[in-house]
């Protein structure tokens, strides 16, 4: 029957076969991880090489923008003269302390405001307004309250970080699907248990996004504060290089700050993964 044949010819074939991932999952994962690493390191390297070439070719004025090799050289010099290490340490101490304090208080407010509407209603407009108050403009207040030395610097970082964690945590708490809470109600959970076993884990992924954002913010604000306050730290290194036009020093400072931010962010993400083993369970597609 011709029509039958025709119909057969028209048939579409769809194949479902194992992909490379299914055929050799371990090898494929290793390959993927290698690819990721290569890409992640390759792109910045490529940019650095381009920059170097542009400098060598004279397209970029080397007096103003040192080349990557210049920066490495300067960094080596500074390292040998022991002028980078103490600043790095000072900055790490400040930002670490400020970050931890700010995150803790921010999470506290976020949780309280996320869980209880009256607290949210009472504090949301106020905190929203305070959020955008330029903290550096309030320096006199900080100096008066916290005296001098490390304390106002740490306080400024903590206050800034606070707002980011507050918003993330509060939003995350409010966004927890009600089903989880309802199940908790039938399990007779106390407020604390409900928080500990239901709200917190449900909100954790979003809170960690906030923590990651705030990690960067804490480094940024640290540098900003050190521009004007506290006579050492990476911000000071950058600022001093800038005002005295020792630009090599400035760019070394910038690169170190960027690396600190990168490491900080990676650490926060790793902690997140450790704390949320379930977040990758059952994921099949996402690996590709």
């Amino acid at each position, binding site marked *: 029957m011709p029509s039958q044949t025709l119909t057969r010819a028209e048939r579409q074939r769809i194949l479902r076969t194992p992909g490379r991932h299914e055929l050799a999952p371990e090898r494929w994962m290793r390959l993927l991880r290698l690819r990721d690493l290569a890409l992640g390191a390759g792109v910045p390297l490529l940019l650095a090489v381009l920059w170097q070439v542009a400098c060598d070719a004279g397209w970029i*004025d080397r*007096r*103003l923008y040192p080349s990557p090799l210049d920066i490495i050289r300067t960094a080596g010099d500074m390292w040998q003269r022991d002028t980078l290490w103490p600043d790095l340490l000072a900055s790490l101490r400040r930002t670490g302390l400020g970050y931890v304090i700010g995150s803790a208080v921010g999470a506290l407010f976020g949780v309280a405001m996320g869980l209880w509407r009256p607290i949210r209603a009472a504090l949301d407009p106020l905190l929203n307004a305070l959020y955008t108050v330029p903290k550096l403009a309030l*320096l*006199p207040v900080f*100096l*008066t309250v916290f*005296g*001098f*030395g490390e304390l106002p610097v740490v306080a400024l970082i903590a206050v800034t970080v606070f707002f980011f964690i507050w918003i993330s945590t509060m939003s995350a708490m409010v966004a927890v699907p009600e089903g989880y809470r309802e199940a908790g109600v039938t399990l007779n959970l106390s407020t604390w248990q409900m928080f500990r076993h239901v709200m917190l884990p449900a909100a954790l992924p979003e809170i960690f996004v906030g923590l990651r954002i705030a990690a960067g913010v804490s480094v940024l604000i640290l540098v900003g504060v050190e521009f*004007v*306050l*506290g*006579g050492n730290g990476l911000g*000071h290194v950058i600022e*001093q290089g*800038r*005002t*005295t*036009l*020792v630009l090599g020093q400035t760019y070394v400072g910038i690169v170190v700050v960027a690396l600190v931010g990168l490491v900080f962010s990676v650490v926060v993400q790793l902690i997140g993964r450790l704390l949320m083993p379930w977040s990758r369970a059952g994921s099949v597609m996402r690996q590709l």
Partner: protein
Amino acid sequence: GGGTPVAESTVAGSPCGAGGRSDPANRDAKRPVARCDKGLPGPRPLPQTVKLRFATAVKAEFIAPLLLAQSKGEFQKENLDVEIVVLPFADSVPQVLSGNLDGTTGSLEAGFFNAVNKDIDLTWVAGNFYPPDAADPAKAQTGLWARKSLFTDPAKPDLAQLKGKKLASNVGFTSSTTYPMAEAFKSNGISVNDVEIVKIPSADQVTALKNGAADMAWLVDPYWLPIANDSNYVLVATQPAGEPLGGFFFGPALVGEKRAAGVAFVRALVRTINTYLAGDYQSDPAAVQAIAETTGATAEAIKGTPSLVFDWEIRAGTTQREQDWFLQLGRVDYKTAIAESELVDRSFYTDAVEGR
């Protein structure tokens, strides 16, 4: 407001006269400051309008010559079209180099010397001002203020007693005030390295003094006002007499191919000083009003600090003296001082006042 003797006598026929010049080596506090008559030197408009762009870190009274030259049309009379952008000195240097700016304003901070050392063409072509009572610590003014209780005899403060104390500063010893401070310390037998720098922005230094975060601070206008009459603080060092520590810097174009425009620019500045900013200009309400309008400050705030002595001239040796201290303190990244001839070009203002 205060005042300073002014060089008189204008030689008839010359665009400004002998009063427009003084011996660069003369740093006498009572030295007459260079001045011409009102409205002089007269404009000599360029054949074609030249656009220039200058940077200033802030719009404040001490930059009034530039601001008023623009607002009063003195640049226009020279056929100059000057745009003023707000930018810190250090940030403006790269822009001068890349041609985005024709010149900038600022003081003799370490960055200037480092820049020139790196072959960045920047030339100091005109001075700006000094406080009328410079070198007279009995009069409250810009300078190093310290807590009185630090001294055994506050009437005759011995700076040696500041050893180990905390100095509030927004940049540390890289600014032009390093030189007067260092000189003051040296004459009392200590070094600036003997004090501890506490980095605090200018606006917050009084707060720092009050809450104990710092023991002393170089307070610029108008930050010393709140403690001017406070018996707890004493002025222990001031800017040197008769010596501007900064002013106007030209990029390569204005020194080179656009030199005529550079001279016209300086001529307009000089004329503005002579016309509006000579002597105790704050007693002239119109001048105060003009400054208030261009800076955005209130008239009262302007009158709160004395009239400055605007001085377009560059004293001999200022760059050397600044550099000496920066070299000694390691604030510049070279070892031997750059000669004044590579840093300073006085020909612009001499040409301006002599009608060339």
